[in-house]
């Protein structure tokens, strides 16, 4: 266990330090996400009657776009001076490398989402202090991080990396987005029980599947 956990933590620590030094990713993702929220707020008339229908869609479109931006940048940084190649040359298992990168993205996305959630609550006029909503966000973000890390590793090796990631990412992550939207809708609409019983188990199944499949595919992808 420590053989996996130790390099995972070393990788996460390095990613946090790099982001702390530059702060370019967190600032750009936050500004981009806020712009999406503002655009949606003006484009759609979110009245208290329609908040249950519209808010979950706005939240998850914003989070999904923010995730693609964050994931893409995460691996571009690794490629700049050959950091990924250096990482692959170290005696660390590919699973640990994948999990380290995915955990870093997961924590980063949670940070961005935590900053955005009060903005959603204020602009769309709903309570964000819901256990179901927070759990939904955490579970869906884990799915985003796992799938996004895998496809970033693929996309970053192509010439059209900015386009490639969303093209690969969205079809696979769609079931997670649907489940997250439904669970969030139930939570915002004061029916958290429906979300918990129906959609959260589905999110858990997707996360478990991705947790098994993605590291395995990653190991194949990063081999030459």
């Amino acid at each position: 266990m420590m053989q996996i956990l130790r390099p995972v933590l070393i990788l996460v620590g390095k990613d946090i330090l790099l982001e702390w030094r530059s702060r370019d990713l967190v600032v750009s993702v936050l500004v981009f996400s806020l712009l999406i929220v503002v655009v949606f707020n003006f484009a759609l008339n979110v009245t208290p009657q329609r908040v249950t229908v519209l808010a979950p869609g706005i939240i998850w479109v914003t989070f999904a776009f923010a995730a693609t931006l964050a994931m893409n940048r995460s691996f571009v940084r690794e490629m700049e001076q050959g950091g990924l190649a250096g990482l692959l040359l170290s005696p660390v298992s590919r699973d640990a490398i994948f999990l380290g990168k995915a955990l870093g993205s997961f924590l980063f996305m949670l940070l961005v989402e935590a900053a955005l959630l009060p903005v959603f609550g204020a602009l769309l006029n709903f309570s964000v202090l819901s256990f179901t909503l927070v759990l939904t966000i955490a579970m869906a973000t884990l799915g985003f991080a796992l799938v996004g890390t895998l496809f970033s590793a693929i996309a970053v090796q192509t010439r059209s990396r900015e386009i490639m990631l969303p093209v690969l990412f969205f079809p696979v992550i769609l079931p997670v987005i649907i489940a997250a939207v439904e669970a969030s809708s139930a939570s915002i609409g004061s029916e958290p029980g429906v979300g918990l019983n129906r959609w959260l188990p589905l999110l858990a199944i997707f996360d478990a599947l991705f947790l098994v499949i993605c590291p395995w595919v990653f190991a194949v992808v990063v081999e030459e």
Partner: protein
Amino acid sequence: MPVNLVGDAIKLEGLEKSFGDWPVLWDLDLTLGWGQFLVLFGANGVGKSTLLRILSTQARADAGKALIAGHDLRRNPQAVRSRVGVVAHQTFLYDDLTALENLVYYGRLFGLNDPEKKADEALSRLGMDRRSGQRLRNLSHGMQKRVAIARAIMHQPPILLLDEPESGLDRGSVELLKKLLQEWAASGRAVVMTTHDTELGFSWTGQLGLLAEGKLHLRGPEGTGDSTEFHRRVTVSLGASR
């Protein structure tokens, strides 16, 4: 300090590698013992970097057998990775970390005890101790290269693989590198480096090799073999006019 190592450092038999329909290496054999220093010449595109990438587990050979420090490249790549130090065209370092932070990060990945101390020692050996606190992006290309070499030697690998390590280094740094590599081989470890620079390559004591037409042609250590004929083949192969 001399290192006791058994068997061959590198043993390649019938190694083959193609890119699509384009064969780069074929039927390549090589045996390199401990304490040997192989300087590898070759024109652009003959597969020098590809060979080093295969030896360092970055690329996979299509066919053939490769043992690095007694470990099969295919079956046990992780054991190979902990036994080789690699200097490539890219530094494998992060611009926003200091030289010391970069090395400590890699030291931790390699599971070194006291990585800060090992990183300090490696940087001192490359004359970078006074710049260890500077971010990589603020160092010159040559200094970044020296940090990259420090990264490669920090975990004291028994085998060093260097792809044109002299590029970007000034004369003083090249002398430093030469001393380091010769000490590395003299301590019983093995070194393989590629270079385009015939003058430099011929001036370094060690086994000389020419990679041409997918195969490796070796000339023995200094003083053995037909050095004039080998020199001619190298210069012809590299297209040099000297």
